[in-house]
């Protein structure tokens, strides 16, 4: 009975947690490893559906990822929470046309990283 109570509490605790992005909890692949204390890295300069990317920061908090097309027009803007250290997650491409894009990471209004990438 005691075990059952613990289990129910555990389930309740998990279900009541604030929902946030779930970063991939695994050793950082060498392709995504960032030697500097902060940075942004993609598996390659060509992004395919489900490619991983790593955002490394010293400051926990909410950041913005912008995707701008060849003409620098904003086509997608995504807010995400980042923890201190590596934040590895997937990049999805099925809603995007193939082409050249600029990926911008902002902290508030400040641009902290900018990369030109090809999405296929």
């Amino acid at each position, binding site marked *: 009975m005691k075990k059952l109570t613990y289990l129910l509490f555990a389930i309740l605790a998990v279900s009541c947690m604030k929902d946030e*992005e779930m970063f991939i909890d695994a050793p950082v692949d060498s392709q995504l490893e960032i030697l500097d204390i902060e940075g942004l890295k993609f598996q390659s300069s060509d992004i395919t559906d489900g490619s991983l990317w790593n955002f490394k920061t010293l400051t926990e908090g909410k950041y913005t990822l912008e995707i701008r097309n060849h003409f620098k027009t904003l086509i997608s803007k995504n807010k*995400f929470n980042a923890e201190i250290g590596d934040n590895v997650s997937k990049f*999805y491409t099925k809603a995007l046309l193939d082409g050249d894009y600029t990926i911008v990471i902002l902290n508030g209004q400040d641009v902290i990283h900018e990369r030109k990438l090809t999405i296929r």
Partner: protein
Amino acid sequence: MRQLLLTLLLVPALALGQSSSDGIDIDLDFKGTTSGENDITKIQVNDTLVFALNITDLNDSNDVTYIHTDVEYNKNAYTLLDPVWKVSGANNNLFFYDDTKWNPNTNYDLSDLWAQWSGGGGNYASTTGWKVGHWTTQYTSAFAGDYVELHFIAKTTDNSNYAKAINVTMAKVTDNNTGYTYPIGKVRGHDTQFISQVPLEDFDNNVYIKVETSSNVDATKIKATLGKGSNNETITTLNLDANGEANVTDYFNSSSETYHITFDWDGTEQEWQDLKDDAITISDAVLLLKETGDFEHGNAGNAYEHPIQYIATDFDANGTLNNQDSFDLLAHVLDVADVFVKYIEDTFSSGFALVPSAVYNAITMNNWTDEDLPDMGDGSFSLDLSNGDVNLAYKSALWGDANLSHGTVQDNATGSGVTYSIANSSPLTSKSMTQYAVSDSTVEATLVTEIKDNGNVHVEFEILSDDTAALQLKVNYDSSRLQFKEVIFDTGDTTTNFGNSDYSTVNMGSIIQNGGAIPVNSTMKIVFEPLETITSAAGLVSIRNTDAASTEGLQQHLNIQ
């Protein structure tokens, strides 16, 4: 094995040709024109054609030290210039029989050139309009290859003059050093014994198709099928380049022929659907509502300025624009109905008009109704090749595209060197669409994607401007990972909202039909449920296109921050 392959390859060549095999072959070899054209099918009147009488010596025992060859030609087709003798140091001789033509010796092959003369049965006869030349070269040493060049100027395109208009009739070949004359069967006209090619007209310019399309249309997806004659025999099919152009000089090169062009879509079905979706948007609906007096407070008839707009949006083709047309277009934008399916066929050839510019510009406010449209007959045309480049100019408009965002405006520009049958011609004054249908104003807005409660993905749009009466967004999403749930609007009490999704695109927007402004800070929020565990929202949604119209009914640019 190698020898077997060589044998197999050689057998058909030997069987097909009429070579002397171990004697002398004499080839009437086209060397090109003096202006550098090497394709005989492209020779034109007034070109100087160069032919060589070329000797191939296939005999190992004897040489060629003497040859004479008779070549007859049609004087109505060609003018013969002085020959160019090619064997250095040789004795050369040329004489003619005027108004003479060879009657072949039917006992021997026509290509058996020595038999034709020596075998008896053939003869030269008096024939007006023909002339025979007798080219002789004699030398102390053996020679082969080109021994003389014949230069002819093409005179006419009249094909009745060109049947075997240059023809090798007979030849004699001797090795004087051994006293050997190549016998019957061993002097052959091969590979080419005669020429029947009819020249094209004397035209040193080009014929272009020039389709004026909006920069929003990918012209390379349009293919043109070229035809000729009363039965529209297909010549070829080609794609336009990115500028909507194609050089068709190789296919359209006669001023006496009638031609046709048929345009069709060469993109995918999805690309055709995307073209329509991008072209027909909320500002088109607002413009037509304004034209029919259903936007703001009436004042109908002051929105359109090009008659082609009336044709593009008179869906029921009753010769007038009315509420039914404007509500049809609004319903189309709202994905309630489809003006292609309802009124025409959902195909490029049915919904995308590509019209000769002269006809397009001749459509007026007085003649735009179905019954009175300028008559372009069956679309056939002829060319005037005597006056420089010919431009086959076309303009384009899309069914339902009220503001011509994917079409072209009417103006005075017309094709040059093209004759169409046009019943009515009163060109309009050129005027850019931007002068009346599009304002320079910008709508400021934000759009943010975020993973929220229960893992749902929210895409929230907020308008920051205060002079927009209608707006529309199309948002692509990854339907393999997200399921569309709903659009939640907070846009005030007087706004008509729409939000729905097809397979992977959400179409949403708002319109205040009385011309009022959508309240500042109004929001639209798309909610998606994830179909799998999502680690971030990066790339899951993207803006496909946007459109907006001001409180005055003018198109606005949506600037999403």
